């Protein structure tokens, strides 16, 4: 594993995609490779693109790659699609929109399946970003699965979050709701040639103006709302995406100028540590409880209404926590 980390540091794409694979497969000892590369991470600008299924995230990502390549910036893409809750399989179809970059060595696209993770991304995204980062990508674009209102996990990973909206998804109440509508650093109204785009633009602008300075990390940044023309008019489309690119970079510069990058990095690091704690502490306990048959016995007891799940969990917790060395010993 140490070797794999070294190969990634040397820029080996094969090793990089294998490392991401090992993270996805949760292969034991993969953390050793991460240890190897960890110190070199934290240089790239991470851009999150999120929005409803079919909003045009992949097509937008594709054009954004072009916009950055025209500036000779290297680009990494992590494109997430859903895993079937029934079979565990997945059809990873984002990449099909980005194949014109397949032979460009400055672009590395990796598709990821959610593998049961909630929140719109996969568990491997955090480390996947590290891998792309040490490969020296200037910009890393993370495209989430098609999300609803609640999947906002992307804010723990991206410096700049773009929420893609399309006309026809509901009235202005939708724009007032918590969750997805709160996390945007930039709003894109895609397919702006469609009926209702003007109305959606107005509603989103209203929402942005009302919520200015109320919450969010980047105080002082007014979330811009950009209209992106239909892909059926390639020139107009490319032009709007170039504007989007400039806005994204402006946002990053804003974070840098106002010393807000470190706050975002704290949030990302906190998420990573809790994820690692979860894996180090809870996962082994769960595994033991499952394999010893205790889980089945607890399910039976709970179904018969003998004991409620909270009491059962408390019993398990007490047993394991007792084995913990006290802080004075540690």
């Amino acid at each position, binding site marked *: 594993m140490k070797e794999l980390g070294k190969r990634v540091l040397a820029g080996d794409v*094969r090793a990089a995609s294998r490392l991401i694979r090992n993270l996805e497969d949760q292969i034991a000892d993969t953390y050793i490779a991460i240890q190897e590369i960890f110190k070199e991470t934290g240089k790239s600008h991470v851009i999150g693109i999120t929005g409803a299924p079919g909003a045009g995230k992949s097509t937008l990502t594709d054009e954004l790659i072009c916009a950055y390549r025209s500036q000779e910036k290297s680009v990494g893409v992590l494109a997430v699609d859903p895993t079937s809750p029934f079979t565990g399989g997945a*059809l990873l179809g984002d990449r099909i929109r980005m194949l014109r970059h*397949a032979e460009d060595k400055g672009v590395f696209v990796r598709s990821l399946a959610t593998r049961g993770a909630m929140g719109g991304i996969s568990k491997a995204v955090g480390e996947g970003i590290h891998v792309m980062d040490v490969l020296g990508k200037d910009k890393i674009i993370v495209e989430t699965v098609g999300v609803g209102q609640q999947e906002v996990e992307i804010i723990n990973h991206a410096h700049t979050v773009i929420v893609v909206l399309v006309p026809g998804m509901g009235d202005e109440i939708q724009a007032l709701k918590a969750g997805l509508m709160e996390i945007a650093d930039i709003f894109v109204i895609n397919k702006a040639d469609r009926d209702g785009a003007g109305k959606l633009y107005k509603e989103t602008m209203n929402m942005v103006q009302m919520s200015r300075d109320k919450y969010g990390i980047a105080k002082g940044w007014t979330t811009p709302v950009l209209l992106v023309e239909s892909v059926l008019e390639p020139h107009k489309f490319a032009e709007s995406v170039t504007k989007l690119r400039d806005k994204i970079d402006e946002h990053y510069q804003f974070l840098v100028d106002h010393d807000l990058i470190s706050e975002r990095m704290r949030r990302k690091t906190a998420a990573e540590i809790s994820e690692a704690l979860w894996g180090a502490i809870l996962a082994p306990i769960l595994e033991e409880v499952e394999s010893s048959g205790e889980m089945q016995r607890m399910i039976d007891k709970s179904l018969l209404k003998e004991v409620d799940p909270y009491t059962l969990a408390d019993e398990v917790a007490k047993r394991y926590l007792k084995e913990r060395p006290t802080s004075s010993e540690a």
Partner: protein
Amino acid sequence: MENQIIRILLAKTGLDSHDKGVRLLARGLKDSGMEVIYTGLYRTLEEVAQTAIQEDVDIVGLSMHTGAHNQAFPRLRELLNSQNAGDILIIGGGAIPRDDQLELVEAGSAAAIFGPGTSTSTIVDWINKIMAARRK
């Protein structure tokens, strides 16, 4: 903890738009618990090889109905081998005559070729068997 999932790239190259079979297979493989990436139509072999490497797939499935299989399969094998990806398996499907199928497999250009009418379950079983053997 470990949960190894088979990843497969399905590809169509050149001026060949017969993709009903490959789309059906994509669905079947997904339903068998694999992660499937489809290139879409009109790709080059270079693009296919590059995609296979970036996606770290176990297998590339190339579907061909143009008669170019005797050139395409050896070329794809060569492209993968030369990029340190000799371990990625290539399988084929489409309109490929029986004699050519045997020759391509014999020459090592493809690990297996499945002709028209092959059921999805035959392909799934073959993949599961070979991947289980590889992981031992």
